[in-house]
């Protein structure tokens, strides 16, 4: 049957299960938008293309499905790039469709022409320039297949205007396969056996889990491994929710702003089971001193993640869930572990936890950002909300003080660290999970990077909640200036800012401002449990720090810890442990 290119495109999207799309129109997309006009796809018009890509990622990460965004040629495509790069770093499956100038004009410096495929080559898993309407169906199907399989990632399809406007024969293909692309799912049985032996031999094992647990849907398998083998667990930022945050074996996040107990446990462990994690520099700090005594088992679907930063003794390439199934089965036939050693190890970790727990000094008069997060947790834990964050202190405090018990309930920009990610990601998450409460925990700097999306939530009545921890600073950078640059606060003070309550109201969104600790609970109750979007501006203590912190490139012994809980001292400066 013959159809217009734009029709083939939209039909294929529907066939791939697309229900929601985020984007922004433009001249070269007009044929496609004309078809979208009466398609069943719920198209969300954002106010900046970057937000479309983040929203698609939020949708993908909350649902596990592929998120889709669309933007026009030239500036539309270049505005998408930050969101595409974010999805690439965090292995999120999104398909980005960009319009392109007509094929005859490509290379002529035409109006709104940019080489989208060239620009996004290093930040996509794969990308295509469509040159023939007959290729649309197969290409879109391949794009979805590549985006969601193996180590997921963004795929871009660039569609010239004439390709969407010409008619072509539309022949459905059922299955796509690529001879050059066959991700390995099953772990090498010999390696799995070695891993099982190493685990049962270990006296001080630690599970170090990352985003791969969530992507492959292996939270249950990780819990079974931890419980059956009595192994304490730490997670990366991307891994949060991959193991219950309230589980007695959970030590908290590791790395730069990780807990003292998690980082000490990694330092002293004799067997480190890395699951779907990639030994990022924010996790390892000084590489030579990261798990120096451990036999390292590294399970990951991406061979290039293994031994990239830290050599692995037992590398296992495969899908995390599949490999964990193999491993759990294998462990049934290996010698039982010595539980007295495990008990002792868990006790020792408990000691570190007691020694330096995560904490902050509460105050009756001023608002502590950590207090706001604890309060949100307390009030919403039963609803199991989806929490997104921006980047910086807001993100780290959330990771520290909110407890995530379920996968896909914490969505944050891990690899790229994109300010402005959280709000559009929350929009995407809410469209994926309309029944869930969705909250963006933001900073005043980050929120201003995509503040225009207030119009989007107002237009479509998307009831996401934005909690601003407003310290009128680019707080994380200011904190580094305090620790490492003699408190010279070069260009990090942003006290010149709008009244966020009024900005929200100007967009037709409910706004609040909270300055007193006593008002936190009542305002949260009203704002979070209403069925409309809301912005709450919490005027928090300005120079509160995220602690502990391991200075970049240093080891756990260089940790700057929060002052001890009992001794009340006015100074908030950290104490250095040696």
């Amino acid at each position, binding site marked *: 049957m013959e159809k217009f290119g734009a029709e083939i495109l939209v039909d294929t999207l529907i066939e791939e299960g697309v229900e929601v799309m985020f984007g922004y129109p433009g001249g070269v997309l007009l044929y496609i938008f004309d078809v979208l006009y009466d398609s069943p796809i719920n198209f969300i018009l954002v106010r900046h293309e970057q937000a479309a890509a983040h929203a698609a990622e939020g949708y993908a990460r909350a649902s596990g499905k592929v998120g889709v965004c669309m933007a026009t040629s030239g500036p539309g495509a270049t505005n998408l790039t930050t969101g595409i790069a974010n999805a690439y770093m965090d292995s999120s499956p999104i398909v980005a469709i960009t319009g392109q100038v007509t094929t005859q004009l490509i290379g002529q410096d035409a109006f709104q022409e940019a080489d989208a*495929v*060239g620009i996004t*080559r*290093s930040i996509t*898993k*794969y*990308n295509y*320039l469509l*040159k023939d309407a007959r290729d649309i169906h197969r290409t879109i199907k391949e794009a979805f297949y*590549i985006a969601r399989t193996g180590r997921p990632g963004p795929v871009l399809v660039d569609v010239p205007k004439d390709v969407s406007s010409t008619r072509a024969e539309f022949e459905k293909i059922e299955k796509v396969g*690529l*001879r*050059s*692309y066959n991700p390995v799912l099953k772990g090498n049985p010999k390696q799995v056996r070695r891993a099982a032996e190493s685990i049962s031999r270990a006296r001080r094992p630690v599970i170090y889990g990352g985003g791969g647990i969530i992507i492959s849907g292996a939270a249950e398998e990780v819990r079974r491994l931890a419980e059956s083998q009595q192994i304490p667990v730490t997670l990366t930022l991307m891994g949060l929710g991959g193991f219950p945050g309230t589980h007695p074996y959970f030590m908290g996040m590791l790395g730069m702003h990780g807990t003292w107990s998690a980082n000490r446990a990694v330092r002293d462990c004799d067997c480190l089971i890395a699951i779907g994690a990639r030994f990022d520099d924010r996790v390892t700090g000084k590489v030579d001193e990261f798990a120096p005594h451990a036999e390292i088992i590294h399970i990951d679907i*991406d*061979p*290039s993640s293994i*031994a*990239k930063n830290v050599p692995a003794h037992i590398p296992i390439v495969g899908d995390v869930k599949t490999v964990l199934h193999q491993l759990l089965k294998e462990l049934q036939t290996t010698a039982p572990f010595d539980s007295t050693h495990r008990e002792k190890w868990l006790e020792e970790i408990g000691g570190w936890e007691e020694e330096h727990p995560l904490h902050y000094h509460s105050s009756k008069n001023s608002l502590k950002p950590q207090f706001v997060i604890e309060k949100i947790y307390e009030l919403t834990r039963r609803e199991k909300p989806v929490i997104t964050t921006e980047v910086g202190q807001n993100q780290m405090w959330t990771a520290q003080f909110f407890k995530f018990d379920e996968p896909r309930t914490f969505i944050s920009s891990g690899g790229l660290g994109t300010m402005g990610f959280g709000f559009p990601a929350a929009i995407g998450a809410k469209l994926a999970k309309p029944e869930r409460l969705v909250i963006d925990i933001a900073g005043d700097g980050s929120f201003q990077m995509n503040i225009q999306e207030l119009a989007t939530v107002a237009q479509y009545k998307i009831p996401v909640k934005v909690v601003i921890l407003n310290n009128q600073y680019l707080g994380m950078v200011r904190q580094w200036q305090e620790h490492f640059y003699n408190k010279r606060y070069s260009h990090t003070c942003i006290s010149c800012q709008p009244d966020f309550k009024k900005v929200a109201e100007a967009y037709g969104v409910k706004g609040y401002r909270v300055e007193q600790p006593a008002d936190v609970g009542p305002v949260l109750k009203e704002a979070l449990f209403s069925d409309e979007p809301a912005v709450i501006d919490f005027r928090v203590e300005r120079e509160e720090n995220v602690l502990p912190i391991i200075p970049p490139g240093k080891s756990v012994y260089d940790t700057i810890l929060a002052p001890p809980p009992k001794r009340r001292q006015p100074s908030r400066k950290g104490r250095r442990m040696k």
Partner: protein
Amino acid sequence: MSKHTLSVLVENRFGALSRISGLFSARGYNIESLSVAPTQDPTVSRMTIVTMGDDRVVEQIMKQLNKQVDVIKVWNLSQHDAIERELVLVRVAANEKSQDQVIRISQNFGAKVVDAGSGSMSLAMMGDEQEVENFLNLLKPFGVKELIRSGLVAMLKNGG
């Protein structure tokens, strides 16, 4: 740091070459030479890449290449028995006095005189890395005016 010859079988698709060369520059790996052309199957191209790096870097390069959607297979030929050849076009200064010597060197290396003009001769030579180097060293005293190398192409012995 040592030299490695990588042989990469890739889909002959739009953008495959720039995706692979872009990977090298984006991740800070160096390319000493790169040659690419279709194989007996026109949908597949063969790239031969000569790169420098220690074992860990070369292992990462191999993994990153394998990860590319377009890449069908990668071999590190430096770890195998392989046939390596390079084509060299070189123009050397030659007058009536030195002409015979240049021709004699060429004959020794199986090179061909492909052009001769006033005061210079152009030679085409094919050989492995060592032969090419020896050949060029012998020509150097005469004065090399222009040198063009194809980059290495290589093949596993006995069909791998």
